[in-house]
């Protein structure tokens, strides 16, 4: 816990020192259609560098849909169509010249349910670097695997059994393994889709700690159903409802004095 507070302190200081408001990703009038049905309407939302942005809102409000737009995972759904503009470092990610594979290497994703591949722990982490050719020699790969597992705060638990299947780990460990897997390709942004919803409170606490540590090096967007989680881990919060972005702002403000009545109601548990 001690380390945690130090870390937070460092982050807090770091935030002040950084020019604070560098926009990493920007959504401009983003809309999503699934076939005929529109799931997302004109969302304007900025994701700031080295901050955690939490997306909250009741089920079916479009927050996961928006998240999946940010690394074009919606492309894998046949009927999905995205309108508007999303930029990463001022570059339109839906531009024809953008290679979606490259984009996903820069904008990694961690899913709701831990989904390690049915391979060894080592191979799970080495998967990304291997397909992107990040390591030339075995030693380099070992290095990447180790540092990724360390960053995901799971190294000590698995260092003696790297060759065992990743599916044999506990739920919380699996999720941290998936985070390590995402980190291993050195992404700039990590998208997390309710990463703790399948975990118990203790595992959740570990992952939340981890998220807070990770934001030094990465920009994080997290979808969550837990108000406490959003309050604990994020610096910015965006509230979605029925496919619209209701409001967005600094987390402190959102949880104390929201502008919109719906945010107020949702946060205090009156609906959703």
């Amino acid at each position, binding site marked *: 816990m001690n380390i945690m507070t130090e870390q937070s302190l460092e982050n807090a200081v770091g935030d002040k020192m950084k020019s604070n408001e560098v926009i990493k990703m920007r959504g401009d009038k983003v809309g999503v259609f699934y076939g005929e049905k529109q799931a997302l309407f004109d969302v304007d939302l900025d994701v700031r560098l080295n901050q955690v942005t939490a997306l909250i809102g009741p089920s079916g409000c479009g927050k996961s849909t928006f998240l999946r737009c940010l690394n074009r995972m919606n492309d894998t759904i046949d009927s999905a169509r995205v309108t508007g503009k999303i930029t990463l470092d001022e570059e339109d990610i839906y531009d024809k010249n953008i290679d979606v594979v490259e984009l996903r290497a820069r904008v990694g994703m961690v899913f709701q349910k831990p989904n390690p591949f049915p391979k060894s722990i080592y191979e799970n982490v080495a*998967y990304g670097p291997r397909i992107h050719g990040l390591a030339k020699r075995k030693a380099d790969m070992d290095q990447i695997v180790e540092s990724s597992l360390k960053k995901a705060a799971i190294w000590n638990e698995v260092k003696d059994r790297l060759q065992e299947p990743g599916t044999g780990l506990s739920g919380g460990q699996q999720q941290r393994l998936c985070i390590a897997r995402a980190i291993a*390709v050195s992404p700039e942004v990590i998208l997390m889709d309710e990463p703790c919803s399948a975990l118990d409170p203790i595992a959740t606490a570990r992952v939340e700690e981890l998220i807070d540590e990770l934001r030094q090096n990465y920009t994080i967007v997290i979808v969550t159903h837990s108000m406490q989680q959003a309050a604990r881990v994020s610096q910015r919060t965006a509230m979605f409802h029925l496919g619209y972005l209701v409001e967005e702002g600094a987390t402190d403000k959102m949880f104390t004095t929201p502008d919109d009545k719906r945010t107020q109601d949702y946060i205090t548990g009156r609906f959703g």
Partner: protein
Amino acid sequence: MSSLLVLAIVVAVGLVAFFIGRQRAAAQDNGKVKPHSRAHYHGWWAFLLAVLPALLLLAVWAVGSSVYLDRHIHAALPERTVDSKVASEALDVSLVKSLARGLRKLDAGTLAAMPASFAELQPLLAAKGVALASDTQDYMIPIAVEANKVQDRLGLFGAIVILASSIAGAFYALRQIAPRARARNNVERLMLWGLLAASTIAILTTIGIVLSMLFQTITFFESVSPMSFFFGTVWDPRFAAAGSGGSQGQFGLIPLLAGTLYIAAVALLVAVPVGLMSAVYMAEYATPKVRSVVKPALELLAGIPTIVYGIFAVVTLGPFLRDLSAALTGGSPFIQGQSIFTAGLVMGVMLIPVVSSLSDDIITAVPRAMRDGSLGLGATRSETIKRVILPAALPGIVGAILLTASRAIGETMIVVLAAGVAANLTINPFEAMTTITVKIVNQLTGDLEFNSPQTLVAFALGLTLFALTLVMNIVALYIVRKYREQYE
């Protein structure tokens, strides 16, 4: 009274019981007591009680009365002597029975003035379209007349008993009807028994088949040693004429087994890559529109009778390959008209839909989370398939391939036509070789004594084949099942 009429009446009684039962149960529902079962369950229970025991009785009666009739005729026939004109007692009885059946076609007038000799009777019967064996004897006529009377009596008596049981069953069920009577449970239990019986039939049949093959096989091994069967390398059964037991052939399984496995291997070499790739395309790349056209089209291949493939192989492909090879070498063809290659190729095409549809199911069963996980890391589709989906689906695919292999091994019609009948041992795929199934067909067709080793060997071959495919299926199912547990 004919059985069909009895059956119809029983069903009618059952239907009446159903309607009365339902009616009565509905009438008893006065809203005070909550009825245990809904009215139609009472109806069905009455129907089942009226019909099922009666049907059982009908079956028993039909069998029993025919046995009784046989005995009766048998007893009435004169003692057999050396100069009896008919070859056997069984033939005697069956002659009387067919005569009795013939007599039923005659009208009452003719029956009253029954001629005493068969010579006079025959034209009368022939006029009614009844043809009888000419060695029917005169003494059989009164026995046949008597037999008909007995049969009528038995039929009438049986019908009365059956109808009585049906009505009794209906009444019993109808009397039981009460708001708290558990008709639903009774009906459900009977359903369960019915379903159980249905599934037992398949198992019992399998056991029966295996046992019958087993006994014939044991008889076969009495004249040919298992060693020379399982390890013999020469197949030369020497078709023996009936009775000439001296000419013992050689029954070596090895050439047939080798041919079977060789052709199956060639077939799998064709079917597995093509089927697998088409499955990958279907599961991962095809848009729903393409999939909805291509998948049924592919599965249509599985619906083509294998004999059609066989004809295609022997009429079109075989000669084509032979001529092609002749043209390539400029004279002598190195591919024979019937060859391992041709048979394997055609069988492979036949198996493509089997592989592809099994693998398609397995690939589709790999959870979406695996795909998302890989794509989310920036892997391309083909990388995802190669490195995540196929490894994850591998056990299932291996199982599918084994299932396909056991089909290839058991396949008959294509190889009968396309592989040839020569029991060679060769490694040249362009020569003819034969399979276990082909030899089973060969040994059982033609005019052969049914207790010579030449015929009995078919059962030994069949049992070997059965054991082979059974083991493969068990292994395949084991692998597939083990794989399934992985994601649950």
